[in-house]
């Protein structure tokens, strides 16, 4: 079955330094969508980025990610971390199958802690 791996459980960064959260995946489906969700404390997880297009950079709110199908990766990056970026980040995969169940397979999540 599908799987998503986020190697880092916790990333601690000083404000202003670049952010890179790793995400790799396994799926047999060529039309898979990859997502990054951000979960702030006491809020709902919300979509940050998504992509299904190989080698195309997608950006939102200062974050960016590029889906690389050759390496099965979708790493999340930001040039300069802000204190407000501290949150739990999930990488997730949807296999793009039709038929009703739009199942998301999640990674374990990475807590990003940005310190002054």
């Amino acid at each position, binding site marked *: 079955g599908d799987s998503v791996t986020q190697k880092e459980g916790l990333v601690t960064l000083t404000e202003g330094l670049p952010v890179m959260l790793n995400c790799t995946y396994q799926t047999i489906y060529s039309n898979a*969508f990859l*997502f990054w*969700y951000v979960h702030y404390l*006491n*809020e*709902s*997880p*919300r*979509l940050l980025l*998504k992509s*299904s297009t190989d080698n195309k950079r997608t950006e939102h709110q200062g974050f960016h990610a590029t889906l690389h199908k050759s390496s099965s990766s979708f790493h999340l990056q930001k040039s300069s971390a802000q204190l407000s970026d501290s949150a739990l980040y*999930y990488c*997730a995969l*949807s296999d*793009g199958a039709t038929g*009703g*169940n*739009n*199942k*998301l397979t*999640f*990674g*374990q*999540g990475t807590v990003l802690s940005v310190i002054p």
Partner: protein
Amino acid sequence: AQTIHQWPVAEIKAVGSPLSLGCTIKGKSSPNLYWYWQATGGTLQQLFYSITVGQVESVVQLNLSASRPKDDQFILSTEKLLLSHSGFYLCAWSQLGQDTQYFGPGTRLLVL
């Protein structure tokens, strides 16, 4: 704008007691609905999905059941809780044919 509510926010329950968690989506007709669960230290995994009223499909067997009594309501329940049911429960919706899911705030459940 669509809103999604989950209730209760948190629960502490005894092993063997019944459970009912609710989810309501407002501002969207005929959404696909999903339940996800995350055990402490675990990964979010899909439990159930529903594409229409009255129809619910189980994805993972955890001695839980789900129902969709109305277009905008999704209920997760069990008659007898197990310790292993503790965790974080998330409800989500998506538009038919779309890949993006939108999540509720979740319910934290502790079974003692």
